[in-house]
């Protein structure tokens, strides 16, 4: 059985610092991390591989060549093969174009399941898995909390999905894209000591446009139907913050504040 895991590298937004004085986002030295939800999805796949010899796990990433070291790290953790779709003409593609590029690669690949995150922490659109599924004409389900792993080996798998007011159960037919939610319960396997220095470059494959053959006007900023027209820092800092101590005076001031705003009545 072959599982392809989408892996996107994203800026580590959790460690973005915000400079409220200057009203800017401090983006220097922000490093790239694996999108947390992709990490959860990949962890499920690698665990399955550890427990079943006939499971093959591949990762698929579209991004700059700089992603390489991360992908090599994943290979050392047990991924069989990593694909990096990378081409200068793809820079600036929106989700519509990204999905078409990824789909064109996948059209010629055999796989049983695709695992992905539900949304990424930088774009956060949750478009790519659904749009790839649409291009490939296969089912897709997002916000997956759990799956019935045995089902992966059959024609349909049971999934538990975190929805608005309920946890829903669905059966999804193979092949399909299963998009997971972030979970703290499962982690990537450690790298074994003997693998630390292993040369894994042979398991990493770069796919460029010479293979996928889009014309220039179809990809990148030029080919994207949406365009970012304005970007601004969203600031809602206040200038008039009052700092109080937790003494009688401070508590009284908080109380008066609540009263003035009608939160408590006297």
């Amino acid at each position, binding site marked *: 059985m072959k599982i392809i895991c989408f892996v996107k590298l994203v800026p580590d*937004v959790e460690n*973005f610092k*915000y400079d*409220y004085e200057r009203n800017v*986002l401090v983006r220097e030295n922000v490093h790239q991390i694996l999108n947390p939800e992709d990490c959860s999805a990949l962890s499920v796949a690698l665990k399955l591989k550890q427990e079943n010899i006939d499971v093959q796990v591949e990762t698929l990433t579209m991004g700059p060549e700089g992603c390489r070291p991360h992908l090599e790290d994943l290979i050392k953790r047990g991924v069989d093969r990593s694909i990096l779709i990378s081409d200068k003409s793809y820079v600036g593609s*929106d*989700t*519509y174009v990204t*999905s078409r590029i990824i789909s064109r690669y996948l059209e010629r690949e055999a796989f049983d399941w695709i695992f992905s995150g539900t949304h990424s922490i*930088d774009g*956060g*659109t*949750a*478009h790519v898995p*659904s*749009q790839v*599924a*649409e291009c490939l004409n296969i*089912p897709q*389900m*997002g916000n997956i909390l759990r799956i019935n792993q045995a089902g992966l080996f059959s024609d349909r798998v049971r999934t538990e*999905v975190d929805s*608005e*007011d*309920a946890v*829903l*159960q669905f059966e*999804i037919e193979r092949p*399909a894209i299963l998009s997971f939610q972030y979970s*703290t319960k499962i982690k990537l396997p450690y790298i074994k000591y003997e693998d630390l220095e292993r040369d894994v470059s042979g398991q990493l494959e770069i796919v460029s446009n010479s293979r996928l053959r889009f014309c220039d006007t179809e990809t990148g900023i030029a080919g994207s*139907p*949406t*365009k*970012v*027209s*304005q*970007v*601004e*820092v*969203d600031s*809602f*800092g*206040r200038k*008039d*913050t*009052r*700092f*109080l*101590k*937790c003494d009688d005076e401070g*508590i009284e*001031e*908080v*109380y008066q*504040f*609540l009263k003035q*705003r009608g*939160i*408590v009545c*006297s």
Partner: protein
Amino acid sequence: MKKVLIYIDPQAVKDSIDLLEAAEQIYGAGESLSYGIVPGTPPADVFGVFDKLISVSPDRAEGFDAAYIADSIEKLHRDFQFDAVLIPATVFGRMIAPRAAMRLQTGLVADVTEIRHHDEEIVMVRPAFSGRMLAGIVNRGGAPVMMSVRQNIFSYAGPRTKKTEEINFNPEPFRKPGIRYISSQPKPQDEDIRESNVLVSGGDGVTRYFDQLNELAEVLNGSVSASRKVVDRGAAPRHIQVGQSGKIVNPSLYIALGISGSIQHVVGIKNAENIIAVNPDRQAPICSLSNIVVEADAREFIPRIIKRIRKGEYK
């Protein structure tokens, strides 16, 4: 007259109706005809607010089969040529919108929180980088303009007395479903923190005595909410989490106890009218967003403020 198609998510009817306000902000009040598409039997609330209503096949009714709804939207667009398609950014809305956009070969903007106009163009504003930036996005690909819209941002207050016309919709059978609904387990339906006027919210600084927040919430007639760290540690249920991966709230008072104010948390409280932070660290980012910062241990603050409020009441 512009035509706007709105997807009505059976699991979030009010949020779907609210998109009528977004439509008015795009084209102006009364300048567009609203078409609602709903899976299954239409809920009573939608009559009177939409101009036209289309219900799609009851046997694949719940709106869980995103490919089916996308096919329906494509078919309807061929018949009616919509100027805009709006979908609430609910769990299933977020699976339907990207598929429908692919079928209509149009760009899609996710999680729109604001509509602006610039040189005749419709600018769809959405948070980026976990909410620390706003990006204004335009669709260059031509019609229809398509977006998923963040819940609880727009609010429809227009007429509810329209004569809603139901449109028959019996398309050829679409693709066979690859998804089968099995069952549903309701999540505990405590109160919805989005409806509270006062939120007493706890972060990792109060994880170990999270229960104490209840009493403060009670005297303030509010509810308790939490940061994701507290939820991840198992001290609070997920449905009371505030923030990017939790809920967007707009109370008139938000009391942040032991919350540092990470980017992902703060996106959830942008619309809070007043913020009081209790935190010994005055450098914590939450502080610069607050009207009042009490530089103290929350454990000390909670009983003292409760006492003061009670005294005020019983005086």
